């Protein structure tokens, strides 16, 4: 299996650690990169820390409330760029109204998950989601 890179965009350290743990225990994510802002995520994908072309991950796990731009604005940016248009984006939040979930789908989110309150449950859900998006799903531009 090809190396699978997941970019986690989450500002809470605790949740970021649980996301990383869940992704790693799935066995389908080879590399997990965690950033705590949309600015850093943009830098990772488009600029690259080495000043190069940046790197497009195989999956983006995106918190809806991540600063400074917020998950929805970052999602729209990914969908408007030819390089990132086809990257699966899995969005997560702990409190979302139905109409706000609708905005995510309307803007091109592939999936939305409510964050469980319980830590073990959170990790287990992320593991299941990683298995779906990294081993079952085929994304655009992936042969």
């Amino acid at each position, binding site marked *: 299996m090809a190396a699978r890179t997941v970019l986690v965009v989450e500002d809470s350290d605790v949740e970021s650690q649980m996301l990383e743990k869940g992704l790693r225990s799935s066995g389908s994510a080879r590399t997990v990169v965690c950033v705590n802002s949309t600015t850093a995520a943009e830098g990772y994908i488009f600029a690259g820390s080495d000043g190069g072309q940046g790197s497009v991950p195989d999956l983006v796990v995106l918190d809806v409330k991540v600063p400074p731009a917020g998950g929805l604005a970052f999602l729209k940016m990914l969908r408007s760029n030819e390089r990132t248009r086809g990257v699966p984006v899995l969005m997560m939040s702990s409190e979302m109204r*139905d109409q706000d979930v609708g905005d995510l789908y*309307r803007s091109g989110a592939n999936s*939305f998950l409510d964050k469980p309150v319980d830590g073990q*449950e959170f990790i287990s859900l992320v593991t299941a989601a990683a298995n*779906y998006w990294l081993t079952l799903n085929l994304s655009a531009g992936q*042969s």
Partner: protein
Amino acid sequence: MSDAHEPQSTILWVEDNMDEEVLVLRAIRQASLACQVIVAHSVKEALDYLLARNAFHGHYPGIPDVIVTNLRIGAQSGEDLIVEVRSRKELRLIPVVVLTGGASPAKIDELYRRGANSFIEKPTTSAEFSVLVANLARYWTHFNRSVSRPKRTRNFPYAL
């Protein structure tokens, strides 16, 4: 086990091959998922269901949690269904998964451009197909939250 306070999940499965229909229904039953599967055998039948018209007039069962469609359904294509669903205000937010065999990378790319949420390559053996169907159904009815239903309660622990 289904929660008495939670409406049952629904999958609209669009497939015209009878053998696969049997496999899908059996796989979901054996996985003990609390979800009902409505099988539509054509794009027209799927739209009749979604829009509660013709055979489904007066029997509106509600917006499904997810639509799973094959790409080739008789003379029509799952792509036609995606276009129809995405062009209608009352249907456009339903997640659509394409489950098919032998699609080219260009076709997969086009399906996402049309608004597919997920694309899955159909496995070649029926055993693999059954496992896949159960995992796919579990993800979209127990893990994913769509707009058609309130925040869900999940059955922990999870496995996929």
